[in-house]
Each structure stands twice: as structure tokens, then as C-alpha cells.
């Protein structure tokens, strides 16, 4: 494709991060953006005047006809933006959560596949060096046949009572811990272990927020006999930054992984990976891959450079497609539905 003409839909925290990363890619020409914030518009007009600003995505698509767009709007707007872009044959990178329903996500995945556009969603863990290594170890049966897992995520995102403003504090706009945070932990399970056939005993509870969930817990069940648990809490003061933890049990060993390292216990040595019997440790410094330009972590650059590589054609295995994101959306919806029918026993009784 040569130089890719790129437009940005949404210039909030993630939009600006993506803009900074992609602006370093020599194959990219960022020509346009839109965001409803008056302040953001004044700021970009004054300081980044090479970018054409538009009132909305429709105007941007009509007038600019970009090769690709980066969608970082609040999640409830993803559907309309993405649908319109697909209809105009525009390639799309869309932030997570992909949409707010499995139905909408599936429609978009189908449409994108029919049109043959390049499509990717922002589940960034799929580009983290530690989780990539974990996937490789699991696929190669290093810990044998999987039997169970525990997927956890903690952060101190919400630290004060009910201070969340804007879309993040509104479930209907895509806010809340399940949409925002747990979606990463669920996607990691889908990616490394597989999509569960059933979820059970799901609970969405509040700690500090008034109108959205702060804690998500659930049990995942698979027809092949695997089961696992999910626990996500975004009001945990012990964590300085978001932390994903996954513990996986297999017939031949046990594996613990977070963004920084892997611990792996094996019943017998596994020579191909230079792993001994007993406890092994793999650190990020053993497996990292440098990226051309670093902004928030290697994975943020990797995912966007992957998108650009896909746009430039060639034999690139697509990672984190709309289809993958729709599968994650399916599980998020299962958890929400399941949480509504819960039968609980009060400890006091």
C-alpha cells in the first residue's frame, strides 16, 4: 500500500497514545482526526496543524477517504463508526471492548470478513512478550493437557468513592470494570486457553463506584473438562499499575505468568525450551523484543505496527481480529447475563 493515509476517530487518552506511536512509523501519514471535545480541537488546531480536524467520523470518512482509521471513542460508539467505515472499505483498528454486545460484534466481524478489510481490536495482551511466550509453551504442551486455570487482574484505577466522570462511569456507554478491565483478563483466557462453553456463579459488585461494577468474578467451564476462575478488581490499592496474572494447571506441570515473568513447574525436564524438572523462571529480560518506538510498553507499539504490517500486505498472520474480539464480547455478555440470575446465600443465615 506504500504510505498509509490514516485517520483518528477519538483523541482521548488511548487515541493520543496511538497517534504518538503511529506517527513514528515511516509508512504512515496521519492526515485527519475527529473528537467532540472543544479543548482537544483547539489544542490540535494550534499545535498540530498538519492534521485536518472534522466534526464527526462521517465527515472525516467522506472528505478524507483514509486507507485506515484508528477508533478510540467510548465503546458505545464503536458500532456505528466501525460499520460505516467497513461500508466504505476502510481498514480499521478499534479499541477494546470492541462493542457492547456479542450480536453487534458478530455483525461487524462478518461485515469486515465479507468486505475483506484489515481489522484488528486493541486487546494488547496478545502482543505482550510474556503472554506470547506463555501461549507458545501451552500450544507445545509443555505443561501437558490443561486441567484448570485462574485469571486475575488488579489495578488501582478507581481510588476514591464515586469520582468517575464521563463514559467510564456509565455502563451503557461502555464503562465499568467488566467492560474496561475484565475484558483484558477474559481475552487472555480466550487467547491462551480457549473460549469457555459456559460461565457460572458470576458476580459483579461495587466497592467505590455508584453506578458501575468494580469487581468481577466468575467460573469458566469447558466441555473438554477444563474449568477456571476469573477475578478482576479495579479498586485495589496494592497495585500501582494494572497487573494481569494467569495461573494454568496441566497434567505435566503448572505455570504462573504476569506481564513481567513466568514461573513454570514441571514434572519432568523439557529440553526444547531448556526447562528443567521442578521450578523454572523466565523473565521479561529473557524474552523481550524491542520495538521501533516505545511509548507505553512494547505491546502497545507491537499491536499498531502489526496493524500497519497487515495493511502493507504480504503473508502476515492476523492477530486479534474483530472475530477474536467478538468471541471475547460473547464471554463478557455471558458473565453479565449470568450475574443477573445469581442465587446467593447470605453468610449470616
Amino acid at each position, binding site marked *: 500500500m506504500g504510505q498509509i493515509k490514516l485517520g483518528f476517530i477519538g483523541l482521548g487518552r488511548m487515541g493520543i497514545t496511538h497517534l504518538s506511536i503511529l506517527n513514528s512509523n515511516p509508512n504512515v501519514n496521519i492526515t485527519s482526526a475527529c473528537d467532540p471535545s*472543544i479543548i482537544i480541537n483547539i489544542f490540535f488546531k494550534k499545535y498540530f496543524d498538519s492534521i485536518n480536524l472534522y466534526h464527526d467520523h462521517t465527515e472525516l470518512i467522506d472528505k478524507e477517504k483514509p486507507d485506515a482509521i484508528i477508533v478510540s471513542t467510548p465503546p458505545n460508539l464503536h458500532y456505528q463508526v466501525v460499520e460505516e467505515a467497513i461500508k466504505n472499505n476502510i481498514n480499521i483498528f478499534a479499541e477494546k471492548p470492541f462493542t457492547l454486545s456479542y450480536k453487534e460484534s458478530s455483525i461487524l466481524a462478518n461485515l469486515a470478513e465479507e468486505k475483506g478489510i484489515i481489522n484488528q481490536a486493541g486487546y494488547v495482551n496478545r502482543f505482550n512478550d510474556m503472554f506470547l511466550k506463555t501461549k507458545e509453551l501451552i500450544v507445545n504442551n509443555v505443561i501437558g493437557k490443561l486441567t484448570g486455570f485462574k485469571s486475575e487482574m488488579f489495578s488501582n484505577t478507581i481510588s476514591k468513592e464515586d469520582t468517575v466522570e464521563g463514559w467510564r462511569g456509565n455502563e451503557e456507554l461502555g464503562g465499568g470494570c467488566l467492560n474496561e478491565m475484565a475484558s483484558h483478563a477474559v481475552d487472555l483466557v480466550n487467547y491462551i486457553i480457549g473460549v469457555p462453553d459456559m460461565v457460572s456463579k458470576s458476580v459483579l459488585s461495587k466497592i467505590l463506584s455508584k453506578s458501575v461494577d468494580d469487581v468481577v468474578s466468575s467460573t469458566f467451564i469447558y466441555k473438554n473438562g477444563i474449568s477456571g476462575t476469573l477475578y478482576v478488581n479495579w479498586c485495589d490499592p496494592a497495585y500501582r499499575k494494572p497487573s494481569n496474572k494467569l495461573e494454568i494447571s496441566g497434567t505435566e506441570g503448572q505455570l504462573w505468568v504476569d506481564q513481567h515473568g513466568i514461573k513454570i513447574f514441571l514434572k519432568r525436564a523439557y529440553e526444547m525450551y531448556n526447562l528443567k524438572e521442578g521450578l523454572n523462571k523466565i523473565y521479561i529480560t529473557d524474552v523481550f523484543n524491542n520495538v521501533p518506538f516505545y511509548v507505553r510498553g512494547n505491546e502497545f507499539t507491537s499491536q499498531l505496527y502489526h496493524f500497519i504490517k497487515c495493511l502493507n500486505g504480504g503473508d502476515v498472520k492476523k492477530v486479534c481480529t474483530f472475530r477474536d474480539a467478538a468471541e471475547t464480547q460473547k464471554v463478557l455478555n455471558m458473565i453479565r447475563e449470568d450475574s443477573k440470575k445469581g442465587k446467593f446465600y447470605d453468610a449470616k443465615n
Partner: protein
Amino acid sequence: MQKIDKVILGDNQFFGINHMSQEKAQQLGERFRELKDIIAVYDYAVENGINAIMLNSNDRAKEICDYFRANKTRYSDISWYPSLPYPHKYANLVAEKGIVSAVNEVIFSDNSTKGLLSLVAKGSSALLGQDAVKIMQMLVDIEIKAFHDLNIKVIFLQNIITDLLLGLKAKIFFKEYADYIRKKYNVLPGFLTMNLPHLVKHFTEWGIEEVVICSSINKIGYLMSPDIKTYEETLKNIDKNKYQIMAMSVLASGAIPPEDAIQYITGQKVNSIVFGASSEKNIKETTQLINSYFN
């Protein structure tokens, strides 16, 4: 340009930051819950001849600085290398409130700037977009307050901000930041970055000179974008009169044996090494190694 110190004690170990292990990071955070335990480490450093401290403007910076101000005679030789802002404060605020409200909150929660920004309060918050340089200056003033009356040598911009602005090729903010730090504080402007070759290339083009650049530099190429080879090339050709280089993550979070690490780094054209350590033994050994290899 004023020369920066050769050996500087960093602060990651105090605040639960370890690039390799979250568990280790949390244990460290726990160990340094009390100020006296932090001060004990600074005392080891001073006893081993370290007279320079790099400290992020996080929520514990104030109590640490208060201590050093109160004991000024005892620590009269210490130079300070603050870095700002504390990125997670802003990241969390932005996550909760959005970018504009987050900036608003920081500025309004600071008493001294209330008068200045009365305009914004009256509804003209478009000022935030119109004069972002002024906002940046105000944020610098707020963040640097904790360090008042200490002997500051360099004021660093944290890498998350530096690299974000670098990607945006926001020349004006780099220029204005450097000018402001020089004029208002009369110290050297500094930039932390994970993209040193990229930064040097742009700074050279933009004519931004006489600044300090701090970046991960280590034998295994950890946190060095785009790669170790480009770093080595850039360092080889660097104009030392324009850019002083401070190396961090030289031990790559412990992945490189200390002697190998120091031997490698002292073979590069760097002016200074900042390292974090929490035990007397590690501080002593690392300092001795640096002094034996680094002239």
C-alpha cells in the same frame, strides 16, 4: 554546561517498582513504608560517596525532601535530580475523569494557582487547549514544589511524557520546557526516554541543546528502542558539549551480572550512571565497580 554527577542513586526500589517482578516490587514497596527505612538507604549511599539523588515527584517525595531540608547541614553536598510528573497519578486521574478534567483537578487542587486560573473557573476552559504551554509550566511548578530549597541540578521530564511528545514530534513543548527550566529554575533541563536515538536525532534537528538525556542503556538491549546497535551508534557520535548522557537500567533489573554491566556501560560514551539498590552491600559494590571502571 554544568557537569552532572557521575554516580546517582535512583528511587525505584523505594516505591514498589521493579521491571522484572511485580512480586519483588511489592515486597520492596512494603519494606519502605516508613521514611526511616528510606533514609537509611540514602545514608548508605552518602557513606559510599554518592552525593546525587534522583527522585520522582510522587506522593512520597515531599516527606523525603522535608527530611533533607530539616537536616540540611548533614547533607549539604547532595545534588538533586527530580523527575516529573508522577505518571501514575495522571494516568489514574485521566482514567477516572478524562484528560481535561484531570488537568483541571491538578491545577485547581493547588492553592497557589487558583488565582491565576480564575479565568478557567469562570467557564473559559478553552484556555487549556489554547495555551497548553502555559498549562505545562504551571504543572511543572506544582510538581517541583516538593523540592524547594534543595540543590537541584537537573529537572527531568518523565519518559512517558517525553516519549509521547516525541512521537507527536511536538517540538514546541520540548523547546518551551527546556527554556522554562533554564530560565525559571536556573538548572539543566533533562529528558528521560526509552528512545534515545530518536530523541537525539530530533533534538539535533530542532536545535535543542545543552540538555541531559537519561535512558536505559545496558548490555542486553533491554528497554532500548529501536535496538542496541542504534544506541551504540548514536552514543559514539554524540556531541558531549550539547548532550550529557545518564544511563539507567544498566543492570537490566538484575539480568546482567554487575561487573559485566558496569564494564559495558563505562565503555559507552555516557557521563553518568543512575542505579537503584536497597541494601548496603549492593550500593557499596555497585559504587566501587563504577569508580573502578569509570573515569
